[in-house]
């Protein structure tokens, strides 16, 4: 009998030792990101996912996020693939919205964001609008003005208009001798095409004479005709609004044909490792405005953290990194409960919290917010010796 009691007591002790009180159970808040993880823009999704996970790890290691009921929760990241396709992006967002999620981060491509934001309720609280009532904050989709589409749409992307406006104004002061510019644009890509319009307008606004523009497509393989036109124009500045593959193709063709402008300007998305891998030699000297470079301790640490998760920190993934900290702050400020029975209320709180933000802390400093868009600090980098080097910090 005594033996049986002793065994039961021992088992009870073991059971107690391994049990955890319900109140102390760790809660998890799942944040779902989405973007291109297949197709030729897969690298954007890979980087965004790595950045979200890296930021979540930093937040979790410092205690996690405090929920509305005072309990602590850890972030868990899930990332879904929309293939940079508008229909799939809408489908993915609807799938996320059918879960307990109260916010989603994405998408990668502007064409997806444009369509997706269109299915969200246009004006929050409008009972006559049956659009999706789900807050989405974009990290990559860069085409100007997208958050205007819906009051449920937010972005933490830099304003390319501001960046190129500042860059051309700065160039005017630094290189007053440069009078003419020739453009090159990847005509079938929304971001490149829209940004070229910005570059052209800002060049003209700063007194540069636009001598013409060469056009090509995202998957083009030869650029000899366009570069020959460029050579004939003989402009002081060549501005290329294209992604790394064709930017490198054009730069290599320029080298072959001996086109050597006094200054080269590139698209924000080309200030990446891909350009350096593809054509570091030909890209030497190209100036690109960007909202990310590892120039502050926070940015350096973020770049290291993102690399640990298999990604690369650039102006796009850095935005995803920052978004996790923005979400943490809004969850705490709005006392979001993150429970299955508070999903609708949590979504409204998240939307209101994001809409109320006037300023957030970014990796390069304070980020202003207006009309659900970010006003991010930026700097100019140039390609030098196979890497991107800071050329000028306009804010300083």
């Amino acid at each position, binding site marked *: 009998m005594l033996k049986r009691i002793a065994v039961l007591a021992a088992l009870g002790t073991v059971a107690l030792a391994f049990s955890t009180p319900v109140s102390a159970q760790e809660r998890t808040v799942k944040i779902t990101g989405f973007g291109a993880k297949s*197709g030729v823009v897969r690298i954007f999704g890979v980087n965004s996912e790595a950045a979200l996970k890296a930021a979540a790890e930093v937040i979790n290691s410092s205690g996690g996020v405090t929920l509305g009921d005072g309990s602590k929760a850890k972030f868990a990241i899930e990332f879904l693939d929309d293939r940079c396709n508008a229909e799939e992006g809408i489908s993915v967002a609807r799938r996320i919205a059918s879960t307990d999620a109260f916010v989603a981060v994405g998408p990668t491509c502007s064409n997806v964001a444009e369509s997706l934001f269109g299915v969200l309720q246009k004006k929050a609280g409008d009972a006559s609008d049956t659009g999706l009532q789900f807050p989405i904050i974009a990290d990559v989709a860069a085409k100007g003005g997208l958050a205007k589409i819906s009051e449920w749409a937010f972005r933490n992307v830099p304003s390319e208009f501001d960046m190129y406006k500042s860059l051309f104004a700065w160039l005017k002061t630094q290189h007053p001798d440069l009078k003419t510019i020739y453009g090159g644009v990847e005509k079938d890509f929304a971001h490149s095409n829209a940004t070229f319009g910005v570059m052209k307008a800002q060049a003209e606004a700063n007194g540069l004479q636009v001598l013409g523009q060469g056009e090509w497509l995202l998957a083009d*393989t030869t650029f000899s005709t366009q570069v020959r036109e460029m050579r004939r124009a003989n402009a002081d500045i060549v501005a290329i609004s294209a992604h790394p593959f064709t930017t*490198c*193709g054009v730069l290599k063709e320029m080298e072959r*044909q001996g086109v050597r402008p006094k200054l080269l300007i590139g698209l924000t998305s080309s200030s990446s490792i891909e350009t350096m891998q593809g054509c570091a030699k030909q890209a030497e000297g190209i100036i690109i405005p960007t909202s990310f470079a590892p120039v502050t301790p926070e940015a350096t640490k973020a770049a290291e953290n993102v690399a640990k998760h298999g990604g690369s920190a650039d102006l796009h993934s850095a935005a995803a990194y920052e978004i996790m900290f923005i979400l943490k702050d809004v969850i705490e400020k709005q006392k979001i409960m993150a429970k299955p029975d508070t999903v609708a209320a949590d979504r409204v709180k998240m939307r209101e919290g994001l809409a109320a933000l006037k300023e957030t802390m970014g990796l390069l400093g304070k980020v202003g917010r207006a009309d659900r868009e970010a006003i991010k600090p930026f700097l100019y980098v140039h390609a030098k010796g196979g890497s991107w080097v800071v050329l000028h910090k306009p804010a300083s």
Partner: protein
Amino acid sequence: MDYLDFIDAVQSLADGVLFGTTYALLGIGFTLIFGVMHKINLSYAAASIGAAYASLLVLAVMKAPPALVFLVAAAAGGVIGGVVYLIGFRFIPLANPLATLMSTVGLLLLIDEIIVHTTQGVPLNYPALFSDVIIRAGPFTLRGDLMFVFLIGCTCMAVLLTLLYRTRLGIATRAVSQQPTAAQLCGISVDNVNVLTFVITGVVGGIAGAMIGAAIGMLSPLLSLPLTVKGLVVTVIGGLGSIPGAIIAGLLVGGLENVFQFFRGVSERDLYIMLLLFVFLVFRPGGIFAAAPGRD
């Protein structure tokens, strides 16, 4: 049109014709498979680019000269060609034309995604030979690397034509192409000929992929779909099953593409190439070297 415009137009045409060699090589692959099996292999261009990507593995392990990289691309193309046959044709009911068509569409997407997942979609540098050589002739210039691509392309075509018309394998291939049942009765293994055709066209595709990479200086998964379309256009214009037709059509499409780009710009360029395709489909459905259609 002033003098400079004329010079630029001729230069564009010359550049396009030289680059068109790669289209011709792709067209030969498409046309050879169609000639032998009467099937379209839509994964051919993607497999060619895949072979070029695979050849970069050599550079990852050693500092290989470009010529060795090209040879590895050819070998990898042969292997991928064999695998494509096994997956996309060997066990698929050949009597159903849609079945093999869809299986090759699947393979096209599969190869594309394998490349994307392996490289994260990031463009990779590809070695070139004679990239710093520019041949000048008055106001015209010819790129050394494109000349090299052109020469390699011409050599490939010559070797392939010799193989087809001067060897026992070529006789067997043509026999299977013309009368598969009779060829089988003569003791020719149709399966062996089919798989060899895929391996040989794979080798040609690997060379085409390498030459495309060398001409651009880079590889990107972005290339697969446009090159598939170009390869098909070349095959139709050249005439399904006609190797000389594919060669001429490749050079023609390459040249005209650049000329249309010069005169009408990028937004209309492909429109005219497609119009050319329709013109051939309507007025010369058998391709460049086909006999003029007679009355029914």
